[in-house]
Every structure is written in C-alpha cells, then in structure tokens.
C-alpha cells in the first residue's frame, strides 16, 4: 500500500499532473479533489503522467474518467502518459484506451 503523491507543473501544452503511489479506493478522492483547482484553457491538454503509479483500481479508473470530463468541459483534452502495463491492461479491458489519448511518456505528451 503506497500513499498517493501528486505533483503539478506547467508545460507549454497545459498543466501536467505527476501521479505517484496508489490510485485506489482510499486515495482516489485526493486526485478528484485536486481537479477543480487545475486551470485548463480551451484547447489545452491536461497531461496525467502515471510513470510512478503503483496500483490503480476501479476508483482510480473513475478518477481518470472524472479528469476526462473536467478536461472536456473546459474545452481541453485529457492525455495520459507513461501508463504502467497493468493499468494499460485494465484500460483496454474497459475500453477506455479507445476513448482517452495515451502517450508513452510525458515528453511525447507535451510535444506541441
């Protein structure tokens, strides 16, 4: 069990959220509470870097869906970067890999 740690930074394309630890039933609320505080302008990308993600369950999936909705309603787009194999597998089972944009790393994700 790992605590959740989220680091925010800015890139040319928009905000980048670096997520480390477990995104699960206990911690997902932390991620979702953070979303409204992240400003996204129309046309920008909200990049969520999951390179340091340890574990993701259905609450984690819900959190990513919430991020997707948040980006859409701001006129922007959610982009996932460096998704770990396990999570990628879950995303493909639930079909979100067809809905969300996924890049291999945040460098690619923030490339204009």
């Amino acid at each position, binding site marked *: 069990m790992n605590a959740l740690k989220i680091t925010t930074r800015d890139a040319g394309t928009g905000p980048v959220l670096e997520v480390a630890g477990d995104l699960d*039933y206990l911690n997902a609320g932390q991620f979702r509470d953070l979303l409204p505080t992240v400003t996204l302008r129309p046309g920008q990308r909200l990049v969520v870097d999951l390179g340091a993600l340890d574990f993701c*369950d*259905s*609450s984690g*999936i*819900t959190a990513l*869906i*919430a991020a997707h*909705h948040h980006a859409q309603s701001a006129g922007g787009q959610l982009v996932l970067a460096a998704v770990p194999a*396990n999570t990628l597998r879950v995303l*493909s*089972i*639930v*079909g*979100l890999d*067809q*809905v969300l944009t996924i890049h291999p790393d945040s460098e690619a994700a923030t490339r204009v």
Partner: protein
Amino acid sequence: MMARAGQHSDPHDADDDKTAQAAFAALLEDSAEDLYESAPCGYLSTLMDGTIAKINSTLLDWLGLARQDVVGRLRFTDLLTVGGKLYHETHFAPLLRMQGQINGIALEIKQADGGRMPVLVSSVVKHGTTGEPLLIRTTVFDARDRRAYEEELLRRQRLAEEARRQAEADRARLQDTFAVLQQSLLPDTLPELPGAEAAAHYHTASPDRLGGDFYDVFPLDGKRFGFFLGDVCGKGPQAAALTSLTRYTLRAAALHDPDPVSALTTLNKVLHERYSASGDPRYCTAVFGTIDPDPAAGRLTVHLASGGHPPAVVLRADGTATYLPTPGGLLVGVLPTAPFTAASTTLGPGDTLLLYTDGLTEARTGKDRTSLYGDEALLAFAATQAGRPPHAVIEALDGLLAGFGDGLDDDTALLAIGVPSSDDPTSETR
C-alpha cells in the same frame, strides 16, 4: 542591590528596587521553622511504635486537630481510616521495616469534622549513630486533586469502554443490514435451465462494506434465458443504488429486446442520463447475454456482449480453458454513446462458461501481496476444473478466493453456466 552611581534614577525604578529588596530580605528572614510549619505538605515524625513526636501546622489543619491533642498522645495509625490502619499494619509498616523507606502510598486521613482526605504518604526511617532505627519521618501530600484525576481517568475509561461496546454493537448491526441488503441485490435462486445448469456465488471481501458486483439469470420467453454479470464502480450505498438500477434496467431492456448489444446500449443511455449531470461519474462494467438451451441435442448457445468487462472463460470437456474475447467494449454509462463488443459460443456436454468480476484477477498474492493473481493464473486454474459441472467449478473458485485471505480487496461475483456431461453421475435433466 547596588546603587547606580552617577546616573539619574527614575522615581519608578527606585520604587521597584525597594519592593524587590524588601521581598528578598523577607525570604532571608523566613526561618527553617516557618518553612517546616507552613510547608505545602504535611510533616510528621514518630517513634518506631508510631507515637507522634512532631507534626507541622499544615497537617494539623488538614486533620482539624490541635497540636496538644496529637503530640505524644496519638499514633500515626490513629489518623487513618480503618482500611488505612489495616493497610498500615499489613503492608506499610513491614515494608518500612524491611527497606527503611516507603514512597507514594495512597491512604486516607480522618478529619475532625468526620470527613476523609485522600493523601499520598512517604516515610523514611532515621537511624542512630549505631545504626539502630530511631524514628520515622513521614511526609503527607494532599492527593485530593490526584484522586479526582484518577477518578476522572477511571470514569473516562469506563465511558470509553462503553462507547467501544456501543460501536461494536452498531457495527454488528450495520453488518447485518448490509448482509440483508446485499442479499436483496442478488437473486435468491437461479432458474432451472432445461438440459443445463447454472451456479453462482458472491464472495464478500469485507462485511463492513456493501459491494458493487451483481449477476442474474432469468427467463426471457418460453425458451431462452437472459443473464448478466457485472461490477459497478465504487462501493457502499451509492454503488448499491446503482446496482439496483442496473439490474432492473437490464431485465426490462432484455424483455423488450434481448439482443445483447441493444440491452447494454439501453443501460448505457439510462446510466449516462442519470449520472453524468452530477459531475460524479458512475458506471459499471457488465456482460449481458442470452442462453438458448437445446436439451435434445445436449447443448446450448450463448450470445453475449461486454461493456468494459473482463472476458469470460470457456471450460471445455476436453480439459482446455480459453478466453472468449470481447475487446473494445466500453464501460457502461460513461459516454453518451458507447461501443459494445459481441461474441457467441456453443456449449456441449461437459462445457462450462464462467463469468467473474475483477475482484478475482486483482487479488493481491505473493508473500508481500504485491503481485496480482492475474489472467494467466485464472486460465490455468480454470483448466484444472474444465469438464466439471458448474457447481463444482464455482466451489473450486470459492476455495481459491478463500485462500487469498486478506489479499482480496474487492468483492467477487461468479456465474457459471454449463451442460452436464453425459457421464456425469450427478446430472439429471434439470
């Protein structure tokens, strides 16, 4: 206090100096006598037989007695309550004899007005030049605050214990409520399938939370049956409400149009309309399908569709187990329109279709519980059960789940539908 030569002294400074000087001088004059008599604690000196030889004013005041009535007339034990006297004789005095001192013993002294005052007593034996015990010096501390403190501690301890017991009772009641609710979200019994068998099991990970898994098997028309199995996101009462809505929507949709993709599409519309506006995304993953039994031929046909749910496993009579892939189906309820992937299979004698929720594959295993059970392990386990009837497969999986112990974070629902093998001794036309 030296005068500051050559400096103008402020009249206020001079007054302060004088007050400080006076106080300091008063301290010096404070004799040992005064310090003894008016000490914040009681002092007492007794002979070895307990006769009081000296006593300070503080203690006399606490007792409400006059010095002449005490010195040379009373023993230390005369100042104590009955319990104190007994304790003194059986513990205090022997210990004092054996170790020469004794500290911090709680006792009560009797006051002249009939009251009792809790005190803490320490005594030390003073020895003469040849080492023989001469007298006992005793200090008596006011323990009223301490007693009040201890009583308060005890009271709070009892309250905490009571609260704990209440919490335990509440928790037990809540668990009972959840168990009842959970049961109401699941079918009581599965219908009899002609020439086939259905078995199911719901494994709760924690009795303190309502789970979000669901399943059902129900008749569609005179011939076919509908089934579904799924997992709503989240846990608790919200999830339970979603489960309820999902089940009844699927049942109703199926009766109207049993095509699996249509049923899921209807469910998607209903959930999306219901929940998307609230900014709190709610969805489920689900497999919906129809069973078309052909008992004369000893087989049944399954048509199903998956909305973001892990693929079903087909166990064959020849001992193999494979996934029935349904890639690309999306979680149900997240987007206004969503794709769902269909698949079909025919089950013959000894074949079983197994549906499950991800509580199973996501179970944490390994010594440190960091690896997940996973798809491959499930397939390998299923292969060991291939050829056995549905209820046996479910029992085996239940055993597997039990073996995960606290590695199981999530509830798991299992549904198995199969055709008994022709040589199965327990098979009968059901």
